[in-house]
């Protein structure tokens, strides 16, 4: 749980940058084609609290029309996300 408070402002800033993007019709149209990638290669461990924060972040991106994708996710982490039930919230099930 410790890391989530540190990560929070970073994620909030990223979300701001996405929501602050040009909202022209063209941009709206293209946004669904933009698929931000969330690189988890630097993450060594996480728990349900971390999953929840990531899920909320992805949900907010979805609401903005962006479909985020997790990359560099090890099998161990996939299994952990599955055991915590966050597959759907983290877009791991299509």
């Amino acid at each position, binding site marked *: 749980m410790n890391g989530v408070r540190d990560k929070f402002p970073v994620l909030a800033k990223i979300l701001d940058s996405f929501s602050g993007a040009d909202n022209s019709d063209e941009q709206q149209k293209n946004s669904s084609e933009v698929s931000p990638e969330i690189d988890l290669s630097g993450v060594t461990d*996480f*728990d349900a609290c971390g999953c929840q924060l990531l899920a909320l972040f992805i949900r907010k991106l979805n609401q903005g029309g962006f479909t985020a994708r997790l990359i560099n996710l090890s099998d161990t982490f996939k299994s952990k996300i599955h055991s915590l039930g966050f*597959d759907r919230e983290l877009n791991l099930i299509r």
Partner: protein
Amino acid sequence: MTETGRNNNIDLNQFNQVFFEECAEHLAEMEQILVSLGDVGPDEEQLNAIFRAAHSIKGGAGIFGFQDMTVVTHVLESLLDRIRNHEIPFSAAMVDLFLEAGDVISMQLAGHRDGAEVRQEAIDQIRVRLQQVIDSGAVVASVDVCNLDKPITENLGVHPESEVPATACQCFEMEFRPDPDIFKRGVRLESLFGELEELGELTVTAVLPAPPEFNEFDPETCACCWYLTLITTASEADIRDIFEFVAEEDQLKVQAIPVNAASGKAPDTAVTEGNCTSQSTCQADSEIVDTAIGRRAYDKNELAPGAFGRRTNEGESSIRVGVSKVDQLINQVGELVITQLMLAQTAGSLDPVVYENLHRSLLQLERNTRDLQQSVMSIRLVPISIVFSRFPRMVRELAAKLGKQVELKTIGDSTELDKGLIEKITDPLTHLVRNCMDHALEAPAARNAAGKDPVGTITLRASQVGGRIVIDVIDDGAGLNRTKILAKAAERGIPASDAMSDEEVWQLIFAPGFSTADAVTDISGRGVGMDVVLRNVQSMSGKVNIMSETGKGTRVTISLPLTLAILDGLSVAVGDEKFIIPLNSIIESLQPTAASMKSINGKNVVHVRGDYIPIIPLYELFNMKARVTDPEKGILVLIDVDGEKAAVLVDALLDEHQVVIKSIETNYRKVDGTAGATILGDGRVALILDVNSLLEMRKLQATDDRSN
């Protein structure tokens, strides 16, 4: 989420502490029951209580992430379950095995709590030995080292397939809406779901039902809920038991649905992954489920409140508070008492008729302050059973070692004593009990020959007498040997004579290094102890008395003040200063006549009822200017310290107070002859006299005078 090198446990420490304390309590409870059994098997209630303790430790360890602690407790509870189901007969040898298992769990606990060394081989050995009992139905003394290499899961208490009751497969749908601060509490949902998974086939789906605005979101608050589906032969009680420490009743909904009906049914949200699978899946996985059920079959019928690790109402009616917080509260109430005294003193100079209302209110304030002080002081009081409870096992093991038969009786277990005193009294009591076991109680043959019951008795009795707590350690052994003690005293050059009363002779055993034991054993006999007992008790402002009768036994009585934080004292004046003399050491006060005053070796003594009592002029001891230097014009306060008397010369007696003791050392430095200080109603500091050290100072002064 956590990055490399970050410590993931910092915030969990305060919650871990709660687990550590609860775990220690469960272990103590388990040990207490086990040692009370003797050769008699436990009754159902006792067995349940031991099981409950093991089960609670395992549950807590799993939730707080101390998985290693679940290993021994798991096999232990499996074995207890077999005994409970009469599948394995109970034997006396199992008590030792269970006690050893408790020791191993204690070691693991100390490892997590204090960073103490944890011996993995001890854990493996006890696990294998417990498992061997499960497998063979009897305690095996030696450990099959080959088994140590087996993975833990192979050794867990899995019932053979033939023994597993054929139970219908059920599908449970659960909706788990945890407390928002579940993450802050350090609950590990991975462990929780992992334990559920051991019951059968589990699917978990997390849902963020109403996602808050990101910027307004507290990332450490749980906003998720979980939908879980479990296909299992376990019961709803089994499932609820896993959530026992995590969810209140309204936070977990469990619904059993027939396996056929489960197919295709979805929870309210658009969750489809969490649905039950078909019966065929259930059957296909029956082996896994059966294995899991076999492991947890003992968890049946746990619906009753308080049964099998469930928290009872009693547990919820108390809260744990750090000692430092209580001490802070006591300190603050002490300050309040002083302020109230100041107000009362100021108001004392005001006309009681004109200020009648003020005086009435101040009286009310005084009553309320006293009540508050007593209530707060009572928070620090804890039952002496905390100390007494450690002796049954010690007595049991020492009796076995010494080849003696001993029964330990405790009386007044609920007598309450200040927590600080409880910690300090443990060592002296331990020493006294060991002495009883080793020296006082005779071997069964000797007892038989003396016409006594071969089973000796040690009684620990606690009671409150006035403002003091009296603890007796009584044995029905051989009693103290007067001749032997006198001979030993003469041998060691300690002044003693045949004319001494029994009481005086018994006091000789408190001399440093004094021992009448014929042989030194690893239990006692080295002569290191009784002097330490006396010193420890005296450091708590306590007294030790001995009564003994040859052939019948000995009674050692320890008398302690109820608390160390407040003191009943008499304020006296010397010059411009005020001192507090503890009331419990005062015999009387008197104004001597010229006829009663004598001088021996140049020192003044007063003749009181046949005794010549030395006079201690306080002004001399503290190098002060006094108004009265002639004892005939002042007041002598007679004090008694362990039978030794002295007369303290003061200018005047002032008042009787209940004073709050403040440490001088913390705020200034150690002052000889004092036990602390207090703040009086007029705001001035008064030193509290330490009568023990006053006598010491007088003796030192006398020695110096002689040598000069």
